[in-house]
């Protein structure tokens, strides 16, 4: 349901003198993709975004939505078809949450019943209970909740295109990660074409199907997938902007599901180590992973400290491994392992059942492969 958005040689100059804010920008954004515009301040990313819904008018070139020039559409009609989310959210303080979300459907004169249904559907979609939330005012919500309502408001009339200007820039890092993940999930369901502005390269890599790196003077430095941006930066500027740790950043693109899991020696609760029902020799491994009756991991058992003939119990287990799920990024997995100073992380499936383990060595292998594919070593990039 997303639209194709195309920038053709777009130029924006403010005033008659001075360098252009956006200079000969051409981009093709396929329908349903998230395109992130990223760059240092003054690179024209917000200006670029605001030209799509004509809050700023381009000085030259064309912006096409599904082939139609935005300059040929009446601005208010155009904007009602484009979702818009800004950093400060800008909810209407004098209207209830329901009325805020209903803004564009009301402008489009949807029947009341349809608006009501859509509002409740969106509230549920962003994880807020419509019953108590519908009639509250924005001041009664937390910052993260307000930001979610802002996204719901932008999605209300099912726009084919959505513009987001640093939407998660004003919330704390923990809430930001949650909002990012939620938005990605939401996007998988809605498949709107999204243009997303940020100055944070990590956010760009995480959120974007494509990332456009802009540099001062509104010049496009590179337009590529996050993968390509990290492995083949097109210029020194991009390499520096992406950062010396781009090999590490690449780990954020892969999840635990992408690597082959290893299997640790396990033992079930109340089994005797080395017994026939256990099936492993007593001296087979120093550490065994203790699982409960439903295959859920409890902790590690040090076999050297277990007297022979003793049943494996909860009391003997050390719960020192972080639990990872299949959609944990390798980057997060690595930082959890390093944070706890352990070698092995236990991976569980959606039901919390043991699926395998990921080790620091496995992740290092992925990192090494990335480097061999052409990413210079962090040290070499740091010198450049």
């Amino acid at each position: 349901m997303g639209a194709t958005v195309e920038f053709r040689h777009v130029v924006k100059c403010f005033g008659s003198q001075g360098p252009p804010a956006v200079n000969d920008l051409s981009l093709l954004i396929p329908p349903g993709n998230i395109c992130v515009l990223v760059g240092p301040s003054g690179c024209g990313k917000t200006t670029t975004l605001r030209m799509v819904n004509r809050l700023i008018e381009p000085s030259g070139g064309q912006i096409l939505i599904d082939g139609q020039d935005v300059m040929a559409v009446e601005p208010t009609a155009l904007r009602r078809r484009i979702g818009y989310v800004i950093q400060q959210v800008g909810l209407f303080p004098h209207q209830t949450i329901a009325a805020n979300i209903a803004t564009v459907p009301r402008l489009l004169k949807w029947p009341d019943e349809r608006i009501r249904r859509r509002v409740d559907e969106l509230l549920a979609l962003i994880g807020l209970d419509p019953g108590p939330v519908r009639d509250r005012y924005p001041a009664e919500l937390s910052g993260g909740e307000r930001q979610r309502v802002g996204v719901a408001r932008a999605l209300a009339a099912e726009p084919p295109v959505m513009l987001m200007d640093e939407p998660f820039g004003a919330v704390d890092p923990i809430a930001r990660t949650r909002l990012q993940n939620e938005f990605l999930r939401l996007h998988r369901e809605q498949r709107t074409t999204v243009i997303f502005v940020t100055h944070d390269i990590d956010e760009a890599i995480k959120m974007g199907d494509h990332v456009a790196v802009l540099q001062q003077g509104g010049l496009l430095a590179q337009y590529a997938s996050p993968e390509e941006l990290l492995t083949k930066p097109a210029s020194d500027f991009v390499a520096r902007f992406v950062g010396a740790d781009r090999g590490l950043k690449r780990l954020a693109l892969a999840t635990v599901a992408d690597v082959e899991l290893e299997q640790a020696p396990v033992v079930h609760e109340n089994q005797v180590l080395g017994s026939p029902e256990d099936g492993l020799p007593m001296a087979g491994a120093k550490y065994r992973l203790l699982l409960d009756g439903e295959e859920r991991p409890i902790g590690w058992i040090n076999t050297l400290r277990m007297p022979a003939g003793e049943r494996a119990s909860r009391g003997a287990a050390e719960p020192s491994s972080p639990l990872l799920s299949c959609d944990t990024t390798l980057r997060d997995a690595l930082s959890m392992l390093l944070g706890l100073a352990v070698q092995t992380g236990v991976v569980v499936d959606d039901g919390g059942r043991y699926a395998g383990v990921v080790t620091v060595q496995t992740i290092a292998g992925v990192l090494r492969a990335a480097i061999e594919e052409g990413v210079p070593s962090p040290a070499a990039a740091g010198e450049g």
Partner: protein
Amino acid sequence: MTPGEPLIRWDWLLAHLGDIALRVGQHLVLTGIAVGVGLVLSLALGIWAARRPGVYAPVTWVTGVLYTIPSLALFALLVPFTGLSLLTAEIGLVSYTLLILIRNIVAGIRAVPAEVRESALGMGCTSRQVLWQVELPLALGVILAGVRVATITTVGLVTVTALIGQGGLGFFIVDGIQRFFSTPLIVGALLSVALAVALDGLLVRLERLVTPWARR
């Protein structure tokens, strides 16, 4: 005042109840017209001034000058043109409301957060919809605070218009002064104050009623 006369003669009061009610009504009408017309003019000027910073300075300068002219002098100056009429009274009363109301309207509109205006425009509200559905509702609290001040000021000023044959409760004050008779003077003054306090209380209620979001 005749010596030995009581401050308030209750028999006069009882005999003039109908008259008093009439004057209170008249006082309310004079005040209502002045604040109403003043509000309409101020909204027009205030919205214009809030949109164009260049307009704000001259508008406040002109209304500021009007505000400083002594009311007695203003009415006297108008009489040769408009006579001892309701029009004369209202021209004066309205001019005194303008400065207060325009200032509050402009302050209220300017206090609307930029991101609220931006998101309204970005979602496809026309500038008229932004004004009526976003800016004015949000400015309502500040505007009504201005209406309260303007109303109290006007209730006081209406008594002065008794000198040009209008006046509401001011009629009793002028009557009392001319006849050295304290009862109507005190009745006029006290009721005028009571009227101001009552109207102020009503407007505070109204303010709460129309800004439910500010209470929680």
